[in-house]
C-alpha cells in the first residue's frame, strides 16, 4: 500500500500533465498531492503547468480543425496552379 502510494517525480509529472486535460483518476490525484507536499520540484512543475493551462484557457484560442485546414489548403493549391 505505502509503496504504491509513493510515486516517482516522472510519474508525478505525467499525472500532472493528464490532470490538465481531466484525464487523471482520483487515486492518481491523491498520489500527486502527497508528492506535492514534500517535493519542491513537483510543486514547481505543477504550479507552472497549472498556470499555463489557465493562461491558455483565458486566451480562448481557436485553430482550424484538420479537415478545415485541408480544405483551405486544397483550394489554395488549386488557385496557386491557376496563378502560375
Amino acid at each position, binding site marked *: 500500500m505505502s509503496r504504491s502510494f509513493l510515486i516517482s517525480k516522472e510519474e508525478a509529472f505525467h499525472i500532472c*500533465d493528464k490532470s490538465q486535460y481531466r484525464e487523471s483518476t482520483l487515486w492518481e490525484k491523491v498520489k500527486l498531492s502527497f508528492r506535492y507536499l514534500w517535493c519542491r520540484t513537483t510543486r514547481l512543475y505543477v504550479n507552472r503547468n497549472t*498556470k499555463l493551462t489557465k*493562461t*491558455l484557457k483565458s486566451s480562448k*484560442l481557436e*485553430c482550424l480543425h484538420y479537415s478545415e485546414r485541408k480544405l483551405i489548403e486544397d483550394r*489554395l493549391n488549386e488557385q496557386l496552379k491557376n496563378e502560375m
Partner: protein
Amino acid sequence: MPNHQLNPKKWIERYSDYLFNYTITRVNDREIAKDILQDTFFAGLKSMKNFKGEATERTWLISILKRKIIDYYRKINSKKGQAEVRMTYNTDENEGDWLEERVEDEGYLNAEEILENSELGDAIYNCLDKLPEKQATVFKMKTILNYETETICNELNITASNLWVIIHRARIAMAECMEKNWFKS
C-alpha cells in the same frame, strides 16, 4: 535591410492557425472566419508581385487580412442598415432609432478585450511557432481543439505513451517561452 521572400506553399502550415485565431476574435463566427482567411490567401496570391520584401511574410498577410475584415464589416453594416431602414426607419417618430440599434451589438468583443486577447494570442502563437512541428500539431490538437487522446493517436499514428511524452515536452517548452515573453512583461 532584410529582403523577405514569399512562399505560398508554406502559408497554411505557418500562418493558417494564427490568422484564423486573429480573425475569429474579431468576427466571432467560425464559418465567416474561414471564408475571410481563404479570401486573404487568394488575395495574397494575386498581390504577390506587389510584395517588396520590406515586411515579413506574416506581417504582409496580416495587413491583407485586416483589409478583408474591414471589407466584411462594411458589407454587413450596409446590408444591416438597409434592412433596418426598411423595418424601423419608416415613421417620423422612429427617426434615428435604427442607427443606435446597429451600434449596440453584444455579440462583438469590445476594443480592450480584442486587444488583450489578440496580444495573448500572439504570444501563444509565437511560442507555438518555436516548437518542433510534430509537438506543435499534437499540442494544438490536444489543448486547443480538445481532441480525445485516442483520436489524435489514430490520426497521427502514434501510441498513447508517445503522445504523453510529446505533450510533456511541448508543455515544458510552452511554459518556459510564456514565462519569458508573457508573464514577465
